[in-house]
């Protein structure tokens, strides 16, 4: 049964091909059927394979199958291979199941759009590329998937291409992630030339044997891979593309920019964690970047008024948590949080989409209000998602995953108090900003009219995701709450045995974190449910207003890069407007024209002149013969 693993990425790829070739020929119902059906099929097969794997694990808890040899050049012969182990299994299941739910939702959400066909083609292509990424057994094949998801991200962000701003956002996303991709590519070159292979498992074995911990070469390789991860996962300093990527349709934001593509960086680092462990300075950098990002993004989310931008900054912040976990060596915690985050973030985005589609695509939360009674399905979905994000204690999945990360940030190999502090402070800010959104959107006076109704295709994914967002956490609970370690035991073959920490200090930290998230909810209630005059006045005072604008602009990163990179580049292009290099080619043309002017005088058309030159020529020839 495991041999059929290649079908899982092949079906969406086939679906994408069919939809692309038949563009415009099929009726929308059939397009929807193909688009969603291919993913449903993929999800079913993935689940069957998953169950098979868990019940009857293959030897060594991993399964490799080589599909075909790509090329053979000397000692370089990469293959298209699939590697199935618990990590890729979890990723595959999340991608296919969440993808299926989102596509089902979007078959209703995108109904009536003239690019309906294109949308499903791109989404299927994306899922195929993402599956290639997570199932690849060598880094080159992984890179193929990496590039594929980057391409689909570009295509889908700029989906409504008639609007120039969307094209700009798509290009920005592509260019910024390109910076990361270049780092990754150089890293691949380095790994291949130093270790002679790009297959992941042999690579890590050889790295362990040949490289010392902390050696320069290991640090360089790990740093290059990190650059690739930062680009794709929108961490500081390459996080600027994700808020603008919200220009794409909401299902796209849900699938690509929340649940799956942006976590590709996390997957990459988790997959090559042996390399990272060989470079402690880079691992420290990962943790630092994660901590900085989660703080910066959380504060930025506090001040947004577009509901999707709030969720975008929230995504950046939560991926920061995953990076933090990777940085302290808590690999399973990062993957656990990834899984839970995929559920509740997709839920939040789909709920936000459900809201906007009933409000004539109004995105500004200050123009929404009082929707709790009018849109109950959206309200409860969003509330459950928000609770999971805010890590509401005990009942939500987000609580358990966040606790796992925070406890590892304190204890565990490399745990440092400052990281833990950043984590809990951000937990406070997280619940503050998300419940700010909840209270402003769903309570208060209604400001926009509601129209339409919900189809089953909208409500069913919302319900399923809500259930998952509440219950998915119960596979891994902290020491003081039952010590369930199903998840980390499952991941043990990839990451090593889990370390369980118990004790009163641990429980105390647990309670501090829970209290802070509840406090955030409370503060949000106080401030935003019935905003008092004092609060509004204080918020509009000049210093606070400037601070708020700074946060609104994402801590000024866009302006920084604009001044640092974009403007000098534009300046250079303006200077080179007449294109120095082009002058070279024009010079060739004008030189030949000049030569023509000179030679043109010898074409007089007079017979005697030509005869004279004939004679001169023959004289020269004879002279050459004579003088030899």
């Amino acid at each position: 049964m495991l041999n059929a693993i290649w079908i899982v990425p092949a079906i969406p790829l086939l679906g994408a091909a069919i939809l692309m070739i038949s563009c415009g020929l099929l009726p929308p119902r059939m397009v929807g059927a193909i688009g969603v059906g291919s993913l449903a099929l993929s999800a079913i097969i993935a689940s069957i394979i998953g169950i098979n794997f868990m019940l009857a694990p293959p030897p060594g808890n991993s399964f490799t199958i080589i599909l075909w040899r790509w090329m053979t050049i000397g000692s370089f012969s990469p293959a298209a291979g699939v590697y199935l182990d618990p990590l890729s299994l979890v990723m595959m299941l999340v991608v296919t199941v969440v993808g299926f739910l989102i596509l089902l939702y979007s078959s209703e959400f995108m109904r009536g759009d003239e690019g309906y066909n294109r949308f499903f083609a791109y989404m299927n292509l994306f899922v195929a590329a993402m599956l290639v990424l997570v199932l690849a057994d060598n880094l080159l094949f992984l890179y193929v998937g990496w590039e594929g998801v980057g391409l689909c991200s570009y295509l889908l962000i700029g989906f409504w291409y008639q609007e120039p701003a969307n094209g700009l956002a798509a290009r920005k996303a592509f260019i910024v992630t390109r910076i990361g991709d270049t780092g990754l590519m150089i890293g691949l070159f380095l790994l291949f030339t130093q270790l002679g292979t790009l297959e992941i498992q042999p690579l890590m074995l050889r790295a362990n044997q040949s490289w010392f911990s902390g050696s320069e070469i290991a640090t360089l390789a790990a740093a290059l891979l990190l650059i690739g991860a930062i680009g794709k996962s929108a961490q500081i300093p390459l996080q600027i593309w994700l808020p603008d990527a919200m220009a794409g349709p909401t299902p796209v934001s849900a699938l690509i920019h929340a649940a799956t593509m942006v976590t590709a960086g996390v997957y990459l680092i988790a997959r090559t964690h042996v390399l990272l462990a060989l470079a402690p300075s880079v691992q420290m950098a990962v943790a630092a970047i994660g901590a900085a990002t989660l703080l910066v993004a959380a504060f930025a989310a506090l001040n947004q008024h577009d509901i999707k931008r709030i969720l975008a900054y929230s995504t950046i912040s939560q991926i920061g948590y995953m990076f933090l976990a990777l940085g302290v060596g808590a690999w399973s915690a990062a993957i656990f949080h990834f899984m839970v985050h995929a559920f509740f973030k997709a839920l939040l985005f789909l709920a936000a989409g459900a809201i906007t589609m009933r409000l004539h695509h109004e995105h500004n939360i200050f123009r929404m209000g009082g929707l709790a009674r009018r849109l109950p399905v959206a309200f409860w979905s969003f509330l459950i998602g928000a609770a999971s994000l805010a890590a509401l204690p005990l009942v939500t999945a987000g609580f358990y995953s966040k606790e796992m990360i925070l406890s590892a940030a304190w204890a565990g190999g490399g745990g440092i108090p400052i990281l833990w502090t950043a984590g809990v402070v951000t937990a406070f800010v997280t619940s503050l900003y998300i419940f700010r959104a909840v209270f402003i959107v769903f309570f208060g006076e209604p400001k926009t009219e509601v129209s339409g109704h919900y189809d089953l295709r909208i409500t069913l994914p919302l319900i399923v995701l809500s259930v998952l967002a509440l219950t998915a956490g119960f596979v891994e609970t902290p020491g003081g709450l039952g010590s369930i370690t199903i998840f980390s035991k499952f991941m043990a073959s990839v990451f090593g045995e889990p370390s369980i920490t118990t004790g009163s200090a641990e429980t105390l930290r647990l309670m501090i974190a829970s209290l802070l998230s509840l406090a955030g909810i409370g503060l949000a209630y106080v401030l935003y449910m019935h905003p008092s005059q004092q609060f509004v006045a204080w918020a509009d005072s000049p210093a606070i207003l400037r601070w708020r604008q700074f946060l609104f602009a994402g801590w000024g990163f866009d302006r920084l890069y604009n001044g640092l990179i974009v403007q000098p580049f534009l300046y250079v292009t303006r200077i080179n407007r007449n294109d120095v290099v082009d002058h070279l080619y024009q010079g060739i043309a004008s030189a030949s024209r000049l030569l023509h002017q000179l030679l043109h005088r010898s074409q007089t058309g007079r017979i005697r002149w030509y005869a004279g030159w004939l004679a001169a020529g023959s004289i020269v020839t004879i002279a050459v013969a004579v003088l030899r």
Partner: protein
Amino acid sequence: MNVAFYFAASTAVLSTFLVITQANGVHALLYLVVSLLAVALVFYTLGAVFAAALEVIVYAGAIVILLVFLVMMLNLGGTTAREAQWLKPQVWVGPAILAVILESELVSIMVSGNAGAPSLVVILPRDVGITMFGPYLLCVELASVLLLAALIGAYRLAHIGRSGG
């Protein structure tokens, strides 16, 4: 016989020189005839009797006659002022230089070789005929084709059609 050769040679050179310096067309042609006759005599002294006869008959007797017809038709006889004007001295400078250089080159080539002495044989027309229709038969046929082509071409080109040219 050597005397005859030298005499004929100098006549040829002198009259050729006069051909190219005459402004009057008819005079030039007449000098050309003299030059050709002198060259025929040179042929005779070298033992090529058949070639000498052909020179007189075909060259001086047909080709130059064609030129005479043309000159008469186009009324180039009588010194035309224009023709004389075209023969100003400075026109000669360039060609003269070229010619001198060419001549010196050719002379140096010939002098450096070892030419030898002529064989004292008279080559009869019969020998020429045997050689011509023996090894050189193909060239003869090609020459006939050439003449045919020239005939047709000359007729077609000179013909004044109804369109007027």
